[in-house]
């Protein structure tokens, strides 16, 4: 049994114009020693999907179906109180742009101890001691626990976000775009920290990004999302060496690198479909170079192929 199993998850946004199927029938799992990368363009539903794991759905969004089994229990059928206890202690999340997710009028130490007091019966002194340890864990001097967020640089705020998320030793960590908007050198330092934490704490991670190189540097398994669905799931190396889905292929080809020969880069024409009235058949068909007649008629199921999962009519 995997640590986390998401089965047929559906999250829709109910707008006046109709239901927007932001996450539509996706399944994936995370094992104890895995780092799963969720990759896709903006609006593909990757953040909505992981929010659902913590049972967050911002109105008008609603989780309309599926199961989220974490340590043999379905999060979607838990009581409010159970979910509250789970957040931060069982599953913790570092939000996108953690730089701005911190409270500007509380010191970072207060923000760390706040989480600890929520979940554990400890004295104030113990909590502060742990807050200092948490900061040291992410490479910030413990003496800076009394500093306010504005006294830190962007990369350091992101580290503080990780310190808060890991304060209660969660059993699963979710990182939403952890390095987006940071400079390359800071980005690399942070990725090193993430890899280091995973090794030291043995922490399974779900990492959301639109950046192929972040996946390449941190993840063991990758799920590629497109328009609310997972179109391919494979281990990181085989996805990179031999992507199966036409979208994954183009995504990899469109990514520039400073290493190796300067190959020809491609861009994918068009834009993802609106999810209010998505097209019949495969959602990627209008942009797909290998589209066939059947792609306009039937939605491709996710099938097993050489140890990976892919949703494309090319593979039957």
């Amino acid at each position, binding site marked *: 049994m995997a640590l986390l199993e998401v089965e047929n998850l559906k999250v829709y946004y109910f707008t006046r114009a109709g239901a927007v199927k932001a996450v539509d029938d996706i399944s994936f799992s995370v094992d104890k020693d895995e780092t799963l990368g969720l990759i896709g363009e903006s609006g593909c539903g990757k953040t909505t999907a992981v929010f659902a794991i913590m049972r967050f759905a911002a109105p008008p969004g609603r989780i309309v179906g599926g199961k989220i089994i974490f340590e043999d229990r379905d999060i979607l059928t838990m009581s409010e109180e159970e979910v509250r206890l789970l957040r931060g202690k069982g599953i913790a999340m570092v939000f996108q742009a953690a730089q701005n997710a911190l409270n500007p009028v509380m010191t970072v130490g207060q923000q760390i101890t706040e989480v600890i007091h929520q979940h554990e019966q400890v004295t104030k002194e113990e909590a502060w001691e742990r807050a200092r340890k948490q900061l040291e864990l992410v490479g910030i001097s413990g003496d800076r626990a009394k500093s306010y967020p504005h006294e830190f*640089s962007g990369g350091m705020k992101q580290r503080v976000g990780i310190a808060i998320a890991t304060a209660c030793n969660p059993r699963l960590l979710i990182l939403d775009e952890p390095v987006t908007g940071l400079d390359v050198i800071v980005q690399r330092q942070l990725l090193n920290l993430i890899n280091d934490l995973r090794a030291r704490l043995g922490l399974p991670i779900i990492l959301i990004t*639109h950046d192929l190189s972040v996946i390449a540097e941190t993840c063991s398994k990758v799920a590629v999302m497109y328009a609310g669905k997972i179109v391919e799931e494979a281990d990181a190396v085989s996805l990179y060496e031999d992507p199966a889905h036409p979208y994954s292929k183009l995504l990899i080809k469109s990514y*520039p690198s*400073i290493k190796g020969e300067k190959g020809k*880069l491609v861009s994918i024409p068009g834009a993802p479909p609106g999810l209010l009235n998505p097209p019949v058949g495969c959602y990627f068909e209008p942009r797909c170079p290998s589209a066939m007649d059947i792609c306009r008629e039937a939605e491709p199921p996710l099938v097993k192929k050489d140890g990976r999962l892919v949703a494309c009519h090319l593979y039957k």
Partner: protein
Amino acid sequence: MKDRALLKVENLKTYFPVRKNLVEFILSRKMEYVRAVDDVSFNVGVGDILGVVGESGCGKSTLGRTILRLIEPTAGKIYYEGIDVTSLKKKEMRKLRRKMQMIFQDPHGSLNPRRTVADILRQSVRIHRLADGKAEEDAMIKTSLEEVGLRPAEEFWRRYPILLSGGQRQRVGIGRILILQPKLVVADEPISMLDVSVRMGIVELLAHLREKFGISLIYITHDLATARYICDRIAIMYLGKIVEIAPTEDLLKKPLHPYARALIAAAPVPDPRVKMEELPIIGYVPLIPSDVYTSCRFYPRCPYADKGCRELDPQLVEVEPNHYVACCKTK
């Protein structure tokens, strides 16, 4: 070669005063400045694409804006086709602006949400009085839209920016400057806010405009990888100074300045089989850069620094043809 340059920047400085409170002012009586651009010189030839690469806060955007005189320079000269741009009067500058244009980073914020695509371009035409009558305006707008890949133009004509995707909006932003037939364009991070799948489309469009119209480009970015695909030369900036400038492949294959090396080592590689290199850099960008204004800007973070680096402010030296480096350690 130097005389045929379209743009010549000489010892350009842009300083911003640091606001202090009254007590501090009375106590020190001295104005302090952030040196966003500090003694920068380079040339851009006709049809050249120069990449300006650096981390946030290194002054690359200020440099781009100063060249177009959107920010007044503190000192130094900018020559465009031999004309000293820094000494032009407002009216003369306005005439020249048609030839020197800018593409902004944020395609969402830089377009007026209450104007249709056609009207956004029409505004450019009217400001510079380029057309006689509406028919000519319309024809120019149509040509420009189709040139930037918004085809057929009729389909986008009446749309408001909100109905366009990020890539399409950026194309509108490029269309409205293309209609002016500029010779020099400063593109400030034109693709950093776009989705990966459409980025290369914009980069290709910029390369196409250079091929077809001979537009020179100053391409400001923090991303060496995309710069590699479009730039002829790359200038690396650190804390207001150019520390290395060289032809693109030379710079990437054989970086000489320690900061350029660190940037290249840190550049993300989209391949899980490639192991991450150790970073040859120490710590963070200093919060108070004034400490390093009299020394090599990079010495506190440089793994090779010694006492000499603290005393000398190195200048750009040509170490190989067209390859300039500012480092005391490079001979």
